[in-house]
């Protein structure tokens, strides 16, 4: 079982997302995360699916994705050098006595405080999934009020390009 990041270019049509999500559930494939948004070409969306499975299963996943009529292109990013990023918004307790520490912690992780109230900070943090996990680990669990993560997006390094 290895982790794979699969990027999918898909026609921006109603139902394309449920078709892809349905494929994963119908065939029993894992989805760790799934992100989707239109590309610079509004007729197309790009989806990033993080999944895990044996080599045989991942081969089937890419073949089955390619078989979907609306799918234009599929690439397993983890086959070569790539970058992955995920965005997290995390709301933490930041009363008088925690405020300083929390600010410092956000700085260490290169997070940005994007909303402030009398007793809360909302911190924006970008990185790969492990970095976001590490930030959560570094905090006192009692201080976390809410988290929201986008799931992983990925792109190939250098000249490696996924487009039509």
């Amino acid at each position: 079982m290895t982790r794979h990041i699969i990027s999918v270019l898909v026609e921006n049509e109603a139902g394309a997302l449920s078709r892809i999500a349905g494929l994963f559930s119908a065939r029993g494939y894992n989805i760790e995360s799934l992100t989707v948004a239109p590309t610079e070409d509004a007729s197309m969306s790009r989806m990033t699916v993080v999944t895990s499975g044996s080599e045989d299963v991942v081969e089937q996943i890419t073949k089955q994705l390619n078989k979907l009529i609306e799918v234009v292109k599929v690439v397993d990013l983890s086959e070569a050098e790539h970058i992955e990023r995920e965005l997290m918004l995390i709301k933490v307790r930041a009363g008088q006595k925690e405020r300083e520490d929390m600010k410092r912690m956000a700085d260490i992780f290169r997070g940005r405080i994007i909303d402030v109230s009398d007793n809360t900070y909302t911190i924006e943090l970008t990185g790969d999934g492990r970095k976001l996990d590490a930030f959560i680990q570094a905090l006192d669990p009692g201080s976390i009020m809410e988290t929201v993560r986008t799931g992983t997006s990925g792109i190939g390094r250098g000249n490696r390009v996924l487009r039509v």
Partner: protein
Amino acid sequence: MDRVKASTLTGAEIVVRCLQAEGVEYVFGYPGGAVLFIYDELFKQDKVKHVLVRHEQGAAHAADGYSRASHKIGVCLVTSGPGVTNAVTGIATAYMDSIPMVIISGQVPTHAIGLDAFQEVDAVGVTRPCVKHNFLVKNVADLASTIKKAFHIAATGRPGPVLVDIPKDVTTHSCEFQYPESVAMRSYNPVRKGHAGQIKKAMQLLLEAQRPMVYTGGGVVLSNAAPQLRELVKLLGFPCTNTLMGLGAYPATDKQFLGMPGMHGTYEANMSMQHCDVLLAIGARFDDRVIGNPAHFAQNPRKIIHIDIDPSSISKRVKVDVPIVGNIADVLDDLLKLLRDAKPQDIGQWWKQIDEWRAKDCLRYDRNSKIIKPQFVLEKLYEVTQGEAFVTSDVGQHQMWAAQFYKFDQPRRWINSGGLGTMGFGLPAAMGVQLANPGSTVACVTGESSIQMCLQELSTCKQYRLPIKIINLNNKYMGMVRQWQQFFHGNRYSESYMDALPDFVKLAEGYGHSGRLVDKPADVEPALREAFARKSELVFLDFITDQKENVYPMIPGGKGITEMILYEDL
């Protein structure tokens, strides 16, 4: 195709004009609220003929049977809600066997979608896992291009059913109509030609083979590649097996044919599959009902060449050495070009081995029985129809016996639900087969349980005067269920016995057909001869057969392909 001049039409008119432009001969359907405008347009013309079924499952199976027997696209038309859910079993049946079909379903008006309207169901959602693709058309301006795409997608690449869901208001809206001449989709471009380098590798393996085996499936039939397959097998002198879906692609009466492989395949086909050193798989998918346990299959070393249009069928259950993705007819054409001057190995030793396996005579049964043996009925059916009938079947023991005992020499003659295993398929499929081949002999081999699942279509057969011959192998049991219960569940026949069966002869008569009960072996042949002589009538033959007969050989579920239970073992 004639270029249709641009003119302003309603959505309903557009649907019918598109069907005409596609050359659709028959639409199998059932009217209802959401499709009334489409039915109104069908009424006003006579190019596209409508066949009124008695249940939407029948419409889907009939369109499917029509397609299988004609290599055209089957079309059905159903209303929203229960209309489309009733058709789902038929759509899934076509999907599992890769049959090109277009299903047009009505939908509630666009403004009512999502409001739990009367007869509303999310047709695109319900059918998504069992179609090649589906569309919801919300704008009349997209209707013609969507229907064009549906026909294109259904028939190209690995074929399959495509559903077009049309809200009622879209059928009343108007727009300029022009039927597109072609389809261009950047996301859908199925390959035809196979990779030349891979084809060369395949040729080398075939020429080095000491113990070769050719294993072909439904893909050869769908690709109309039977002539190429025959030439290839003859040229090489190799043994050949056809799966349940592939029967008829290679002539069953030829001596190089080893019968069907798999769970109820012949001893010689299964042994050869296991012990060959080079396996050429064409349009087959190493199904669990064919190779049994894949780990057991992998125990014997062999090189596998796999030709298929669908990359996801390759290395799915069995690892393949030489994959070739492409349209089978094109790939075989290219392969034949390389092989015509080549010389394969002498495989006399291998044939000697195969003939020893053949000598087991694995399909033998008790020919002196006083009770009618189902196998005997099928042998006689083959004789009486001189092997030239179109045979549809339902699902169960009778299906396996038909596959074993009716020797199909032509493709598209054997019509059965292989992948999904849908009881109730046989009779409605036979309607489509008969309409596609008027004047031809069509037999529906069924059992007393299967036939009752779509029995209402006897009424459709009457309306359209379809002279199908129903061969009912009546053992009062769901025979295959009973067989499994006998072998694997300690003879506990849980709910597999059918009490209170109808009088099938009277039932046939009630629908305006004729019927005959046959309960003596000596009457089997005369009854068949009499029935098939009645060219213009549907005849229901109710054969009372041995209740305890089993299908042999049998590979128990999860066992290896050579771990067969044979007749002689019991």
